[in-house]
C-alpha cells in the first residue's frame, strides 16, 4: 500500500470520527453537569433524518446542520425537564426516547428515503493543505471536521481552564456546594444538558449530509453509533481529550477492519461489522476493573513489585464518573 493511500485512509479516519466526537463530547458535558442523556442512539438517528430533510427542503446544508442541532437540543430538553423538574429516572426517560426517536425517524423519514440530496464538500485550507503529509491528513477536510478538531480544544479549555467550567464540574460532583456558592443548579443543568444534546444533534447531519450522505431508513447503518458514543464518554473519563482519543481509536479500528477484510477471507463480514461492540465491553471492563472488589483482593496477594505496577496501571485506566451523576438535586 502506498503512502498516499494510507494518508487518505487516515484522513478519512479523522473525518469519520467527527460525529462520534460531537456526540461523545456533548454527552460528556451533559454528564459533567450530572445528567445522563441515554437517548443518544435515537437522538442521532432523528437528527440525521431531520437534518437531511431540512437540507433537502431548503437546499441549504447550513440549515440542515442547524435543524440537527435543534432536534438534539429538543430531545435533551425532554430529558432535562423529566429529570430536573419532574425528578423521574434519567435512565427510564432516556431509554424511552431512544426507541421513540428511532421510530419517529423511520416513520417521518420514509417519504424521503433514498432521495439524492445536498451534501457538504471538502474545503481545503489554502496554503496549509500543501504541507506534506499533514496537509493531506488535517487540512483537506470539510468544515464540520475542522469544527470537530476545534471542539476538542474548546471543550477542554472550557471545562478545565474557565470559571463557568469549574462551576460545570461542580454541578456533577457536588451540586450542594455549587448551590451554596450561588450557582442555580437546576437552570445550569438545563443549559448544559440542552447544549450537550445540540452538540450531539450535529452528529446526525454529519452522517446524512456527509459521511453516509442521504437517508436510508433502517439500513442507514447509524443504529448503534449513539451507544458507542455513550461508551466512549465513559472510556474517555468525561475528559474531552481522552474522549477524542477514544473516538479516533474507534474510527481507526473500523477503518482497519475494512482494510483487512479482503485479506481475511475466513472472517465473515458480519463479525467485523459488530467488532466495535465486544470491543466496547472490553474497554469498559478495563476502565472499571479497578473498582471491583475481587481485583483488590487479588492485588493484595501479589508480591510488592508487580502489585504496584498493576495498581498503577489500573489507576491510569480507571474511569470515575461525576459523583452526583444521575441523581436529582434537592435544595433543602
Amino acid at each position, binding site marked *: 500500500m502506498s503512502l498516499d493511500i494510507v494518508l487518505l485512509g487516515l484522513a478519512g479516519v479523522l473525518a469519520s470520527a467527527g460525529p462520534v466526537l460531537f456526540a461523545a463530547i456533548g454527552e460528556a458535558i451533559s454528564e459533567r453537569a450530572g445528567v445522563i442523556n441515554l437517548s443518544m442512539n435515537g437522538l442521532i438517528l432523528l437528527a440525521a433524518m431531520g437534518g437531511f430533510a431540512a437540507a433537502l427542503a431548503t437546499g441549504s446544508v447550513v440549515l440542515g446542520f442547524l435543524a440537527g442541532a435543534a432536534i438534539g437540543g429538543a430531545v435533551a430538553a425532554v430529558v432535562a425537564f423529566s429529570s430536573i423538574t419532574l425528578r*423521574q429516572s434519567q435512565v427510564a426517560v432516556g431509554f424511552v426516547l431512544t426507541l*421513540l426517536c428511532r421510530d*419517529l425517524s423511520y416513520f417521518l423519514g420514509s417519504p424521503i428515503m433514498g432521495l439524492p440530496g445536498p451534501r457538504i464538500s471538502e474545503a481545503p485550507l489554502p496554503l496549509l493543505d500543501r504541507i506534506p503529509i499533514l496537509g493531506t491528513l488535517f487540512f483537506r477536510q470539510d468544515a464540520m471536521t475542522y469544527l470537530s478538531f476545534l471542539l476538542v480544544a474548546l471543550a477542554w479549555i472550557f471545562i478545565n481552564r474557565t470559571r463557568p467550567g469549574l462551576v460545570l464540574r461542580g454541578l456533577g460532583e457536588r451540586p450542594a456546594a455549587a448551590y451554596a456558592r450561588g450557582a442555580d443548579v437546576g437552570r445550569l443543568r438545563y443549559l448544559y444538558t440542552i447544549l450537550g444534546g445540540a452538540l450531539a444533534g450535529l452528529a446526525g447531519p454529519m452522517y446524512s449530509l456527509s459521511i453516509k450522505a442521504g437517508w436510508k431508513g433502517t439500513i442507514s447503518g447509524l443504529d448503534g453509533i449513539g451507544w458507542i458514543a455513550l461508551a466512549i464518554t465513559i472510556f474517555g473519563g468525561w475528559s474531552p481529550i481522552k474522549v477524542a482519543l477514544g473516538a479516533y481509536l474507534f474510527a481507526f479500528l473500523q477503518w482497519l477492519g475494512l482494510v483487512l477484510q479482503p485479506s481475511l477471507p475466513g472472517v465473515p463480514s458480519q463479525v467485523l461489522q459488530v467488532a466495535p461492540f465486544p470491543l466496547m465491553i472490553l474497554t469498559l471492563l478495563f476502565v*472499571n476493573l479497578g473498582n471491583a472488589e475481587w481485583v483488590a483482593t487479588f492485588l493484595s496477594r501479589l508480591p510488592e513489585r508487580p502489585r504496584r505496577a498493576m495498581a498503577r496501571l489500573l489507576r491510569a485506566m480507571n474511569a470515575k464518573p461525576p459523583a452526583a451523576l444521575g441523581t436529582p438535586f434537592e435544595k433543602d
Partner: protein
Amino acid sequence: MPEPLLSRTQKPLFRALAVLLALGLASVVLLATGARPFAAYAVIAQGALGSWGVASDVLVAWVPLLLVTSGLLLTFTVGLWNIGIEGQITFGAIFATWALRGFQAPVLGGSMAPGLAIALAILAGMAGGALWAMLVGALKTFGGVNEIFGGLGLNYVATALNLWLIFGPWKRPGVASMSGTVPFDRRLWLPTVSEQSRFAPTALVLGLASIAIVFVLIQGTYFGLRLKAVGRNPKAAYLLGIPTWQYSMVSFAICGLLAGLAGAVQVTAVYHRLIPSISSGYGYMGLMVAMLVNFSAAVAAPVAIFFAALNVGAIQLPITLKLDSSLAGVLQGTLVLFVLLAEGARSRIMKGRGGAR
C-alpha cells in the same frame, strides 16, 4: 395532608391525561406527514381486530411479549436494566434451532418422539437465553460493566452470530438468504390450532403461566420480598445479610430463561426456522410494557396485548395508507413517555401541596 379522595382520583386522571397527550402528539406527527390521524387509527384497529386471522396474529405476538415482560419484571424488581434481553431472545432461538437440527434426523427416522424433540429444543432455548443473561450479570458483578452497556453490546454480538449462522454454517443449500434457514419438518412444529394458523395454544399457556408465576413470586414469596429489598436499597439489603449479587444473578438467569423461551417459541411455533430478525424487537417492547405498568405484574398482560395489537395492526398501514409501520413504535413510545412525565408531574404537584416548592 392531601385529601384521600383526591389522591385516589388523581392517579387515573393523570393516566388519562397522559394517554390523551400521547394520542395528540402522535396525531400531530401524522398530520405533519399529511395523513389523517383517525384514518390511520382505524386501519390499525381494523388490522388488529378485523378478522379471526389477524386477531390470532395478535395472540401470536402476545406470547413472546408476555414472556419477556415477565422476565423483565424480575430484573426491574431487583433494580437492573436488562437491555440485553434482545440478545437473550436471539440466543434462545439459536440454541433451539441447534437442538432441532440435531433432532430432525432421529424424529424423521422414527427413533424419537416429535413431542420430546420439541420439548428438549425449548429447554435448550431457555438454557441459551439464561447463559447470555448470566454473561451480562457476570460482567456487571465481576467486571463493573454497567448492565446497560454490557447487555447492549451483547445484543449486537448475538445478532452477528445469528446472521453468521444463517449465511454460513446453517445456510440453505445453494444460496443463503435473508429468508433464514431451511424450514423444519412439520413434525417439529409446535402444534397450532389449524393448518394455516401460526397460533399455538401451548405457547399462549406458557406465556400466561410465566406472568402468573412471576406475579406470585414477587408478591407472595420470601424470595420476592428479598428481591424487592435488594432493588430498593442494595447496601441495606447486603447489611441485612441478603446475598445481593447472587440475587441479581438469579433474576438475570430467570429473565434469560424466559427470554430464551420466547426465542424458542418464535422458532418452533411461529417461523419454524431461524430468521435474521428473530427477536423482532420484542425485548425492547417488553421493557416499554414493564415501564408503562410501573413494574407491576398485575396489569402487564392487558398492556402487553394492547402493544401486540398495535404492532399487528400497523402492518396494514403501508398497504392501505402508504404509511410506515413504525407508527406502532411511535404510538408506544409517546404513550410510555407521557405516562412517565405525568407520573412525575403528579408526584410533583402532590409534594407541592405538602408545602415544598
